[in-house]
Structure formats: structure tokens, C-alpha cells
């Protein structure tokens, strides 16, 4: 029983990382931008939060948790916004290919994060592993009246922020005028343009906002998932690709990303709790989330239901004079 409880708990925490990543990517893709730079942006968000918190905790005798939260959150947002801006400028304004730009952003972002994550302590003249006890603790604070319920008693508050955000995004995308405009841009930018929607503005805003949301995933990874340290082991990158997978799995619906992310978490951690697995067979078990995503991808294309297929203009640059 305790095993199952702790499996569910790891699944939720794991899932929240990719949920943020996927929510940001859903918002981005709804504008027709397929951003394969999500792993890079999540890495940027992660290193942003790490650097902000590190400088503050390093140079303050008794850092206050509230300031820790604010500083690391702001730096994480700035870094991931920078990633989003680079991508937007190159693909929207300069009309470069989205896949290639996204992959480059992943190379850059992961390299940048691993570079500074690995040498931040050295550059500051310290030794050993980075640790951010105060900030990490502030992010892992539980909501008081929920702390008596068995499964979720150790779940940090950002998990709930993720769930709320998913509902807000769902409502905004499908129940508001500006959400409708955004979807129109992603489906058919030329028509949206003719209807008087500022295509460039929508693409920029949704891509940058999406990048910031994905960046929270990186922040959550650092502060909660690995508890305020750094590991240059490609962990964020792998989770970033899972976030891209989750977008497909959720068929571009923010609300479905909630249970989808927890399911991915369960599938990813199951090997740990199933008895009788050797180290090699547990590696096979870890393919499950990807195999399930492929299955969903095939299933969706078999059914050919328009609303499950994602935005029609996904991956295409828009040039007004080319219509």
C-alpha cells in the first residue's frame, strides 16, 4: 500500500514537470509554431531559477524564503522568455524553418544550462555540488489544510498551480474571443489575417508566453524534482522531449495534459515498483511512455477526426505576400 502511495506521489511530481512543459508547448503550437526547442527552454528556465536563487542565497546571510521564490521565479521567466524570443524572431520574423530552429534552440539551451550548472560554483569560487536548501524548501512547501490527506500530503504547491493553469488555458483557448483568434492563426493564418487578426502579434505572444510556461517546468525540475541541486545528466532534456510527446498524447487540449502527465509519470516510474525486474528489463519498461505516445499518434491519424489532429498550419512559417 505504501508502495502504491509513493508510486502515485512520484508520478505526480514527475508529471508536473512535463505538464508545465506541455502546457507551454500547447499554447505555442496552437499558434502554428512547432517548437522543438522545449527541452532547451526548460533547461533555460531551470538554469535561470538556479542562478537567481544561487546568487541570492550565496550573498545573503539569512535568505528569506519569499525573496528566494520571487528572485528565482523572475530569473527563470527571463531566461525562458529569452529562449522564446530567439525562437520567435528566427522563425516568425526571419521565417527560418521551425524544426531546425527548435532543434538548435535545444542544443543551445541544454548546452547553456549544463555549462553554467556545472561551473556556477567554480565561477563563484566555491567547491563541490550546488545546493539551494532555502529556495528548494520554499518551493516544496505544502498547502496547510491538504497536508493531512495521505497521497498528496508531500506535494508542493506548484503542482496545484499547474492544474489550475491547465484549466485556465483550456477555458481561454476554447471559450474566449482571443483564444479563438489564436486558434484561427494556427489553423489558417492567411484567413485569420484577412479577418483582421494580427497574426505576427499572436504568434509572438503565444510563443513567448508558452516558453515561459515551459520554463516553469524546468524550475520545478530543479527545485522540487531534484531538490535544489544540479545534474548535467541530460535529465531535463529527456523530460523535455516527453513534454513534446505529451502534447500529442493530450491531443492539444490543456485539460487532458493533466491526467496525461500523471499517466506518463506512472509509466515512467512503474519499473521501480514492480518486483522481479532486472536492471536490463527495467530499461525496456522505460520505453512505455514513448510507445504509448506512438500508439496515440497512430490511433489519432487512423480516426482522422479533425479536432484531434492539431493545428493545420503547424510547422509552417507565414508570409503574407506568399498567399
Amino acid at each position, binding site marked *: 500500500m505504501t508502495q502504491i502511495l509513493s508510486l502515485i506521489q512520484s508520478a505526480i511530481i514527475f508529471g508536473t514537470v512535463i505538464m508545465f512543459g506541455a502546457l507551454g508547448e500547447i499554447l505555442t503550437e496552437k499558434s502554428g509554431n512547432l517548437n522543438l526547442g522545449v527541452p532547451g527552454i526548460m533547461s533555460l528556465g531551470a538554469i535561470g531559477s538556479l542562478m537567481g536563487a544561487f546568487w541570492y542565497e550565496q550573498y545573503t546571510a539569512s535568505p528569506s524564503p519569499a525573496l528566494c521564490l520571487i528572485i528565482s521565479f523572475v530569473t527563470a521567466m527571463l531566461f525562458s522568455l529569452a529562449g522564446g524570443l530567439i525562437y520567435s524572431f528566427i522563425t516568425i520574423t526571419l521565417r527560418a524553418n521551425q524544426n531546425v530552429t527548435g532543434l538548435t534552440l535545444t542544443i543551445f539551451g541544454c548546452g547553456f544550462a549544463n*555549462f553554467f550548472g556545472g561551473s556556477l560554483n567554480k565561477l563563484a569560487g566555491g567547491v563541490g555540488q550546488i545546493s539551494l536548501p532555502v529556495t528548494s524548501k520554499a518551493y516544496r512547501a505544502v498547502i496547510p489544510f491538504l497536508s493531512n490527506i495521505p497521497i498528496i500530503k508531500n506535494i508542493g504547491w506548484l503542482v496545484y498551480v499547474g492544474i489550475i493553469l491547465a484549466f485556465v488555458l483550456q477555458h481561454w483557448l476554447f471559450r474566449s474571443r482571443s483564444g479563438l483568434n489564436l486558434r484561427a492563426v494556427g489553423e489558417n493564418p492567411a484567413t485569420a489575417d484577412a479577418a483582421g487578426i494580427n497574426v505576427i502579434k499572436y504568434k509572438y505572444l503565444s510563443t513567448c508566453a508558452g516558453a515561459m510556461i515551459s520554463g516553469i517546468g524546468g524550475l520545478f525540475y530543479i527545485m522540487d524534482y531534484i531538490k535544489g541541486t544540479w545534474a548535467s545528466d541530460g535529465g531535463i532534456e529527456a523530460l523535455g*522531449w516527453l513534454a513534446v510527446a505529451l502534447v500529442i498524447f493530450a491531443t492539444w487540449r490543456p485539460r487532458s495534459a493533466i491526467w496525461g502527465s500523471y499517466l506518463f509519470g506512472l509509466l515512467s516510474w512503474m519499473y521501480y515498483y514492480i518486483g522481479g525486474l532486472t536492471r536490463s528489463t527495467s530499461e525496456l519498461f522505460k520505453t512505455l511512455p514513448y510507445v504509448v505516445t506512438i500508439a496515440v499518434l497512430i490511433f489519432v*491519424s487512423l480516426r482522422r477526426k479533425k479536432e484531434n489532429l492539431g493545428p493545420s498550419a503547424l510547422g509552417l512559417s507565414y*508570409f503574407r505576400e506568399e498567399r
Partner: protein
Amino acid sequence: MNEHKPFVHIVKRTDIKWWKAWIIRLVSVIAALIVCAAIIYAIVKLNPLKVYASMWSGAFGTKRRSWVTVRDTMMLLCIGVGLAPAFKMRFWNIGAEGQILIGGVATAACMIFLGNLMPTWLLLIVMLASSIIAGAVWGIIPALFKARWNTNETLFTLMMNYVAIQLTSFFVSLWEHPAGSNSVGIINQSGKEGWFPALLGNQYTLNVVIVGILTLGMFVYLRYSKHGYEIAIVGESERTARYAGINVKRVILRTMCLSGAICGVSGFIAVAGSSHTISTATAGGRGFTAIIVAWLAKFNTFVMILISLLLVFLEAGAGQIASDYNLNEYAGKIIIGIILFFILGSEFFINYRLVFRRKESAR
């Protein structure tokens, strides 16, 4: 009516002289190097020129380093060559990483289990064949679904990478040697069964020969063969292709089979001709970098040589900086990222022209 004119508007270029395009690209690379220099200076407070000199020595400083640079260039080039036909068909094969790994796993399996059973030349042929088959299978699975049900290939091939990575981990822990090390170690270290033999006094000659043949072959295939023509038509417009009587499904399957097979071969080269081991780092992100190589070269395999060399040079050079100045090796990824951003952005100025508003309205 001056006030109704925008300050700047963008016009598509229909023709640009090839030398002009190359000047624009060169300028973008130089601009990128200046930006990188500024960043290097900001971080390590060192003279960037000295740092670049140290990069040069890292890539070409000794004979051995030069050969390692050549080896890595060939590897990246091989993957790029494999991706070229798929991309020319507008089939987004993001799955090179997985195809390389599967090819590498097949190669390693042959080395481990058949190493003592046959002479080296036969073993090498069997290894090559199995890596081709493994890569082709990995490439053709997404193609089948694309051809039959129009399943999104970008995302499908992306997922296949991770399945391949986990499969590789599975085989690594299955074949681990010595037990508990969680790595395969150097395969056949004593007898060198299945290793590329040194030709003309150099260990990596065979790598160059194989990749050279593939590069030339792919250039001819894409430009002068009927298949290449069909690939180009399908890439331009599937409907046109169908109207012209081309069997689109067959072209997709055939091309992805070829693309996956060549990526599989690069796994073979990586294992048998370079690292002599297999791990999830055998592909090491090159499958993704090669996508950028293939795209920037516009599927011209000879241009790919240049771009691969540039990227490998940067990577090797950055590694040298890292060890010279006690930084970590990821510095190279930052520099590569910045340079690629600039080259990608520069394509805009090749494809489009900016027209500024004139002071007086021209009649």
C-alpha cells in the same frame, strides 16, 4: 503618398548570385564568432583571439587531433547524407539518433557474438549488412504509417529515438562487461575482431572511404537519377506527383528505407570504426545536429562536408578551451548554438530583400 508606405517592406528574391549568397553566409558566421567572442570574454575574461587560437590547436594542433576531427566530420557527414533524401522529400526524419543507435546495436551484436566465428572481412560485411537492415527497419516504421495514414512523421520519428535509446540501454546492461560496470567496454579489445583495419597507415582511412562513396553516390542519386527526380517532385507537391503518375507511397517507403539504412551505416562506422563500444552516447546528439547540417546544405552533399567540418571544428575547439581554461565541455554547445542561429537567420537575407522607404516617392 509617402505616409502610407511602410518604413520597410520585404520582397522575395527570385534570383541571387551564388557568390552573394555565400558572402551573406560568411558574414553571418563572422558575426556569430564576434558574438561568441564577446560571451567568452564576459565569462572567462580572456583575449578571445587567444581562445580561438586555442580552438584551432584543439581541432588541428597535432596529427592525431586532425584525424579525430576528420573522423568526427565523416560521422556527422554520413548522417547528414542519410537525412538528405528524406528532407528533400519533405519527410521530417528527426529520428536519425535512433536509427544510428539501432545500427550501432546491430553492429555491436555481430562483433560480440560472431567475433570468433569468421574472418574479419566477412565479419565486417555481416556487420555492415545488419546495421543497414536495422537502420532501414527503424526508418521504415514511421514511413509506413505516414504513407498509409498520413501519421505525423516529425513526432513519430522523435518518439522512435527514445525507444531506441532505451533499447540501447537494455542491450548495454545485457552485454555489460565487466559485470556491474553498466557499460559494454571495448569490444574484442585483444583480437580486434570487427574493428576497421588500418589502411594506408591510418586507422580512419576506411571511415573516409565509406563516407566519401556515400556522399558522392547520394549527390548523383539525388541530382541525376529518376528516383532523385521523384523525391524532388514529392517534396514539392504530393498532388503534382500523384498527377504525374508517381506512386507516392512507394517513393516515401523507398526513400525512408534508404535514409534509415544510411543512418544505420553511420552507427556501424561509429561502433566499428571509432569507439569500438556501444552506449547511449554512441549517437551523442549527432542525429539532431545532422538535421541542421542537411537542412542548411539544401541537400547538397558537398556543401554538407563544409558545414560538418565547421561544426566539428567548433566542438573540438570548444573542448580544447574547456580543458585549457578549466571550464566544462558544454561551452562548445553554446558556441554551436549561436553560430547556427546566425546561419539560420542569414537565410532570410538570401531569400528576401528589404526595401526601405525612399525620401522622395519614386515615380
